[in-house]
């Protein structure tokens, strides 16, 4: 097991689907961070077999609804003075804006570039979202993120 120092004030993004860590790392812009960050991949997990973890030594602002869309199984631990003060469980948001782009070439979003791409949750069990304009269906997840 790899050892990573505990963080003093920051966030631990835990239970990331194994393999999705690098894309979340990139989406959060952590490659440009001027504070300590660590990503650990393929950590053994009781529930999922393997998982990725990201540790951030700073309390950065994150849009949790977007992170929930990317992977609703993620949990976030808020660490203050080296102690976990809050645990945030993510859920699928009812609506996301400009997180994914509609891929239907007949959709109005393909030609009118100024439009906000809006998707609403239509099936929680299947994590399915539909485009507000053309009703095309998409599964939530990192694969679809801009």
């Amino acid at each position, binding site marked *: 097991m790899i050892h990573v120092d505990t963080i003093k004030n920051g966030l631990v993004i835990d239970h990331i689907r194994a393999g999705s860590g690098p894309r979340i790392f990139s989406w959060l812009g952590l490659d440009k961070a001027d504070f300590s960050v660590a990503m650990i991949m393929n950590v053994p997990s009781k529930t999922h077999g393997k998982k990725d973890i990201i540790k951030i030594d700073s309390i950065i602002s994150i849009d949790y609804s977007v992170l929930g869309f990317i992977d609703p199984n993620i949990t976030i631990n808020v660490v203050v003075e080296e102690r976990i003060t809050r645990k945030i469980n993510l859920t699928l948001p009812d609506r996301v804006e400009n997180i994914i782009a509609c891929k239907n070439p007949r959709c109005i979003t393909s030609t*009118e570039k100024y*439009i906000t791409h809006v998707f609403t949750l239509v099936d929680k069990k299947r994590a399915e979202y539909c485009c*507000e304009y053309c*009703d095309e269906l998409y599964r939530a997840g990192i694969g679809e993120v801009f």
Partner: protein
Amino acid sequence: MLKGKHVIEPSNLSVKEIDEICSLAEQILVDPAAFMDVCRGKILATLFFEPSTRTRLSFEAAIMRLGGTFLGFADALSSSTAKGESLADTIRTVAAYSDIIAMRSPKEGAAMLASKYSSKPIINAGDGGHQHPTQTLTDLLTIRSIKGGFSNLTIGLCGDLKFGRTVHSLIKAMSRYSNVKFVLISPTELQIPSYLESQILKPLGIAYTSVEQLDDVIGDLDILYMTRVQKERFFNEQDYIRLKDSYILDAEKMKGARKNLIVMHPLPRVNEISPEVDSDPRAVYFKQVEFGMYARMALIAKLTGAI
């Protein structure tokens, strides 16, 4: 209250509002002279970014028969869209000149986008292969006048169910009535979009079956709704050629149908209904054309607040 509403898809209208529109259309049909001035001074804008015969002309005839006038264009090339103007700006401009806007676009969701920028009611006159609510009002008026209502009907939808926007809107509208069953007749490649199954048919518990052969089911139907394979929606011409003549309704096939079946078609047709069927009293597609104008007259009158 229908005044000022946008009609982008059938679910923008409640069942009660659809009844109101159908009742008004029936009144206009019986006594058109009584309604010839109700929209005097009103201007309908018809923005057709995609070719149309029936829909555009029926909208224009509808406003003129209500005493109003129209302005607009019949193809995108004669508008500032050709210069690169955004739909949002076009709509803001047209809304300043008119009282109500009917628009057709090859792009799905175009009318929905327009409704976000328009201070006047937007009527979706067809958006790509997505929705066509005023054809549905036409279809409902036809069904109501011939079948007496919308419940207890088995409706066969045949042909291009993937890109056929009239089919999508009709499924949405008819799914709200009791004991309606759908028989979806299409090649595998042209089945209905998955959102109609996952958001309408399954959650509402609507009975439906999918089949490939029209002959196997024609005898079970109260309504047969034929559709054209939508050439303009295909990106691959070879696919269109392979699928275009999947279904051809002829006099021989009609022998297997019920005596009280009605055959509907939103038109234009290509090969899917043989001309020999036109003289069959069960063919009602040219009645639909006439009903279309009255349905649109009623809708315009309601949305402008003229009635």
